[in-house]
């Protein structure tokens, strides 16, 4: 176990170093793409917690992202709080919002919850667009200042990149801890067989609501970061389409691990930029690609990798895999 942890950390650090060197020689444009990709990763991670760990499919994540963003923007612009407080408050606020809603929604069985989440998404988008006093209505909120802490303002795209990268790494670590914790195991128990989990003493409603709360927290962080990064929020960003994109990203990467979230997010975010010359056909290729991917490997890239790994290993071992 110790060896495993050690090598895990080494890998993490090396991957981190590689990532951290990336911005060298990169223009503003690519850095922004990367920053938004990292923020998207946080939202996709929220889908991982709900879907990959807890087995619940939600289409409201972009709405929760928006809640975090507008909350942070309001706290900074209208209430005059410093960005650090706004960041924490937005995270906590979105988490609480999701947690409370969880109690209402999770009385419903699996796919009914999904429908309720679609309803929630639509309602949130409608509020973003029309609730002028709070969200600025259709025109949205402008001139949100960049993030600053201890008097240092993160003006450049590069500075923002490192800041967001640090937060992403922290959340990744937290997710790993969650995975190995008892509440994490409760999530997975519910995912695998809810009734059996209930028999073992797992309180369905409470546990699922906690999962929703955690996913809300992740979206809240992502929202606040986005508000500070882009300086401008409007309802056009927080749509049902965006939520479906998150689902596609995690399915692409593989729902079995937060690494799947990274893989899926990076591939699709970067693909959108690489395929620009074919802009007219981009969405078409994208849609066809998704269909083909699901047919070839519904478990995503990680799932495929795992299957490959196990086939290769089967030749060496006899007896049950200890994987």
């Amino acid at each position, binding site marked *: 176990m110790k060896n495993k942890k050690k090598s895990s950390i080494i890998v993490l650090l090396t991957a981190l170093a590689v990532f951290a*060197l990336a911005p*060298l020689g*990169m223009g503003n444009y690519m850095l922004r793409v990367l920053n938004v990709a990292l923020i998207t990763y946080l939202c996709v991670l929220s889908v991982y917690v709900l879907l990959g760990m807890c087995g619940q499919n939600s289409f409201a994540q972009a709405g929760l992202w928006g809640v975090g963003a507008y909350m942070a923007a309001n706290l900074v612009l209208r209430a005059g709080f410093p960005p650090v407080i706004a960041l924490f408050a937005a995270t906590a606020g979105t988490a609480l919002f999701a947690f409370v809603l969880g109690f209402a929604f999770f009385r419903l069985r699996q796919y009914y919850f999904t429908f309720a989440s679609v309803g929630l998404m639509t309602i949130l988008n409608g509020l973003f*667009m029309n609730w002028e006093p709070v969200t600025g209505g259709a*025109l949205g909120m402008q001139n949100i200042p960049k993030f600053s802490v201890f008097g240092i303002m993160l003006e450049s795209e590069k500075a923002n990149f490192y800041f967001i990268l640090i937060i992403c790494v922290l959340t990744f670590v937290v997710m790993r801890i969650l995975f190995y914790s008892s509440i994490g195991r409760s999530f997975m128990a519910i995912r695998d067989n809810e009734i059996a989990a209930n028999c073992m003493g797992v309180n369905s409603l409470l546990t699922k609501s906690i999962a929703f709360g955690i996913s809300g927290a992740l979206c809240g962080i992502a929202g606040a970061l986005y508000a500070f990064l882009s300086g*401008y929020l409007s309802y056009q960003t927080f749509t049902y389409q965006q939520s479906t994109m998150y689902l596609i990203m995690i399915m692409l990467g593989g729902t079995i691990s937060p690494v799947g979230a990274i893989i899926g997010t990076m591939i699709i975010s970067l693909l959108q*930029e690489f395929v620009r010359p074919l802009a*007219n056909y981009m969405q078409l290729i994208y849609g066809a690609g998704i269909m083909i991917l699901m047919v070839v490997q519904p478990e995503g890239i990680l799932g495929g990798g795992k299957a490959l790994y196990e086939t290769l290993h089967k030749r060496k071992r006899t007896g049950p895999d200890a994987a």
Partner: protein
Amino acid sequence: MKKAFVLFLSSMVSLSLAACGASSSGNAPVMEDTKTTSSAAAADNTGSTTSEEPIRIGLATVLTGERAMEGEYASNAAKIITEEINSSGGILGRPIEIVIEDGLGTDVGAVNAYRKLADDSSIVAIVGSDNSNDNIAIANEAKQAQILSTAQGSSPTLRDICNENPWLFQLRACEETMIDALIGYAVEELGYTKFALIHDTETNSSDQARLFTMALEKRGIKPLATVSFTTGTKDFTSHITKMQQVQPEAIIGACLFNEAAIIAEQIRAFGMTDMPIFGSNAWADPVTIGLGGEALNGVCSAAAWVPNTTNEKGAAFSQKYQELYGHECAKAAAQIYDHVSIICEAITIAGNTDRAAIRDAMNQITDYHGAITIYDCSTNGDCGRGGLVVRIENEVAVVLQEIYSEKDK
């Protein structure tokens, strides 16, 4: 092994990012039809020697998604203006080339498309999209990247933003003046005093609704009822019922093409065949008339542009567009035509392609006659100074009055 895989993947990702990042500052991929530019350069053999290095102008529009229609018109117009300019010798002896990027219809996409163009040092100016949200999203980008950018949005908020942002110009026929002229026509010439207002809640339409209300207040009138709806609404029974309840003499509508056609049809279907309607500019657009047909007869609108415009340059452009593409020319195309023309004018005045010089030259343009209207760019906001009051007769928009107002200096 899984860890090695992760390591491998992350290094591949960063390498490809770095590669893409490095190359994006060089040659940005070009959407434009390069055949036109080279053949045009070859066709020009009188006088000025055209150097092969084209002047590149960026166009950040919407090619896919909900607003894809705008991108289609924009790309078509881009082709026409490029061919026109290049066949008459280009600008400063060089051909122009328009580089198009897709903003996908979202704020994030608009910023990405804009940045990709701005990062490319060979691009001298960027034309923005028709959506006020997109324009506001890139406002700060323009300031940071220090490149001349144009916005097509009509929002008064955008005007204020442009006036404070040296790099962003709102090249759009002034909505405030046009709506005022339309209401003036309705109240002073036609004598209506009781109005009901229906509007979409999306940015442009809510702004227009505000301007309509302001124009009425200026004449001491308040709309008897104001109803709003979300884009995509198909059935307007509740809205029309609410308006019928106050018994208006005329209805004012501020919305986009699809909804305008549906509302007109439903108003007529409810028996109000003679109810006068005063609409925002989308009501007079050929797309709307194509959808709503007869129901649109009698609608008056203050439009920046109609295919039968009395503006000479505009009429010529309209005809050329119709011949080349088989459908009527809409405002979205005419705007691109004007934006590119004005940028070229600024480049000519500046005498070189330095981004800052072009921007300074823009402010010197005070009386440019475009296809839509006359432009005064002495201040950055509200540069278009006029439009048309039109009425739709026999499913064609006919010009009643030309509007023009000087800028308050």
